[in-house]
């Protein structure tokens, strides 16, 4: 006998509880990770905020962002008031209060003053490496996408480049150290003794010496550029391939050479894509510690990179401070205490804000470009 109620079965379906269990397990794991992220960022923001935000206008502690990094001196004066002064102000205080006794003096390296040096160093490293990586990366991408025949050899080359992206950054650091710091060629009048090879040049007294660039901004930029080259090449090649074949055909059919076609009909339309994809590489460059540890970064530096230089190009061969390395130094090299927290968490917060701004900027740019470039 036909019973319509049999069509829609009543009661719980088979496997109902198992389904709920799986669902809550997967959801729980997801939200656990979100919770960890929230805790992490919360901790950094809560502890770091006092270092860079103030209650008065302009609500940002400009000194922390613009002052040089110094040693922090903590001491009590004769009245029992506790002072926290960076080295320069401490010296002024001592001079001003000559003859007065101070008590309980403690010093904390790198914890006083601001972090202008690391911010500037990171900016210089990032700019330099992005310029290098874009130049070499776009050249390689143009060759791979436009000129090279799609043979098995080219596929192997492409695969090799992709694999380069998976190499740990510390390996790049060591590579940069052994190649750029110790072996890269320089033109100099007096080669050092450890130079690997000295080739005399035609100009009297000058020689091409493979003695390396020492630990310098130049070596750091080159190392970082090597690290992000695979990302830039891959992104650029994809952007080049995204340009419709019709543009190339039209240009070639009008009697354009291969290079004219690329320069006028392919590059202009792929450049926005190349640039936005490369912005993601910027965040990676800005954040890496390992590649610059041996090649460019120093923990402490009294001058800004451009100070005390004979000519402006010497900035390339000067060492710099860098934010990620500064954070590493603050975290690993000095004992943590209530007086170092401002510098530690402040630096991390500033760093996070910078990286977040870059990421957000690249996302907005990308969205805008996608809207604009339609054919």
């Amino acid at each position, binding site marked *: 006998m036909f019973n319509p109620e049999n069509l829609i079965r009543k009661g719980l379906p088979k496997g109902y509880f198992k389904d709920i269990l799986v669902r809550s397990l997967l959801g729980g794991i997801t939200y656990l990770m979100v919770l960890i992220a929230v805790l992490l960022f919360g901790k950094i923001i809560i502890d770091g905020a006092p270092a860079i935000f103030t209650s008065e206008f302009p609500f940002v502690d400009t000194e922390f962002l613009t002052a040089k990094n110094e040693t922090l001196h903590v001491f009590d004066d004769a009245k029992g008031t506790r002072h926290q002064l960076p080295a320069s102000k401490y010296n002024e205080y001592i001079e001003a209060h000559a003859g007065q006794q101070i008590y309980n003096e403690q010093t904390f390296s790198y914890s006083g003053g601001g972090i202008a040096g690391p911010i500037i160093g990171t900016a210089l490293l990032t700019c330099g490496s992005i310029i290098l990586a874009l130049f070499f990366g776009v050249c390689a991408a143009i060759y791979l996408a436009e000129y090279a025949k799609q043979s098995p050899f080219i596929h192997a080359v492409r695969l090799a480049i992709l694999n380069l992206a998976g190499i740990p950054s510390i390996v790049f650091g060591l590579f940069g150290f052994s190649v750029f710091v110790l072996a890269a060629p320089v033109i100099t009048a007096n080669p050092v003794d450890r130079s690997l090879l000295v080739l005399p040049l035609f100009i009297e007294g000058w020689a091409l010496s493979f003695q390396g660039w020492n630990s310098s901004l130049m070596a750091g930029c080159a190392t970082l550029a090597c690290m992000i080259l695979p990302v830039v090449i891959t992104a650029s090649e994809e952007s080049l391939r995204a340009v419709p074949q019709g*543009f190339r055909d039209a240009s*070639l059919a009008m*009697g354009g050479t291969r290079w004219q076609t690329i320069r*006028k009909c392919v590059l202009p339309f792929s450049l926005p894509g190349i640039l936005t994809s490369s912005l993601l590489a910027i965040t990676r460059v800005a954040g890496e510690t390992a590649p610059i540890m041996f090649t460019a970064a120093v923990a402490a530096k009294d001058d800004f990179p451009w100070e005390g230089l004979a000519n402006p190009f010497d900035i390339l061969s000067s060492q710099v401070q860098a934010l990620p390395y500064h954070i590493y130094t603050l975290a690993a090299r000095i004992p943590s205490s209530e007086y170092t927290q401002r510098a530690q968490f402040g630096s991390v917060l500033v760093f996070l804000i910078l990286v977040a701004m870059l990421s957000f900027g690249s996302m907005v740019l990308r969205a805008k470009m996608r809207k604009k470039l*339609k054919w």
Partner: protein
Amino acid sequence: MNATNNSMQESPEKTAASTPQAGGNCAVQIQNLSFSYGSSEALKNITLDLDRNAVTAFIGPSGCGKSTLLRCINRMNDEIIGARVTAGKIIVEDIEIHDPSVDVVKLRRDVGMVFQKSNPFPRSIFENVAFGLRMRGIRNKAVLEQSVEESLRAAALWDEVKDRLNESALGLSGGQQQRLCIARTIAVKPLVVLMDEPCSALDPIATAKVEELIWSLKKDYTFVVVTHNMHQASRVSDKTAFFYMGEMIEFGETTKMFTNPTVKRTEDYISGRFG
């Protein structure tokens, strides 16, 4: 054909042999041409003479080789890996174009091409038409402006776009875009204009305009039109070649081809019995 048009013939070793009318009434001579993509043969022993200042239509079912032949005439097939001419030759204005001494860039300046899908650059209308001239190193603004106006007038597009030359070419309708591509091609004054199904993406009115355009331009240029549309071939061409499976089945006056074809298969195709 004036001398300035023949940039391809400026190469010194060729100049002596070539006078513009040397090829008789033929702009393009295709002699015993065979062509392969890798191992598959796309064209078999094609011999065909294309009249100067006339429209020749290539018809035939898909994959019959008509587009391949068209792309051979300005060596666009060079871009395809593994594609090569296996036998025979193509002579454009007395120059064998597959000869190693021929510069393919110069060849393409004399043999322009309009593609199936209209492909204006995402630049202004002016820049689209001036593109070929700029590539040739012409920077003089007055010369460019004059040339752009001439080309747009010739392409019957001037009145529609003269007030918005600096707007993006992508704002034009499909038919206008295709006429812009034609204007862009004739702006560099080629000898031969190859058209690969120029109207397949256009509505009947836009198609009619492009066809009118071909008729009106034929006094200055030699046209080769590949088309799937038999009516278009009958409307627009002086001579028609019918291809099937990489072979040329029949070639002759369009009026004769469409009224009284000599080969049975041509008749079958034209009357719609297959294809």
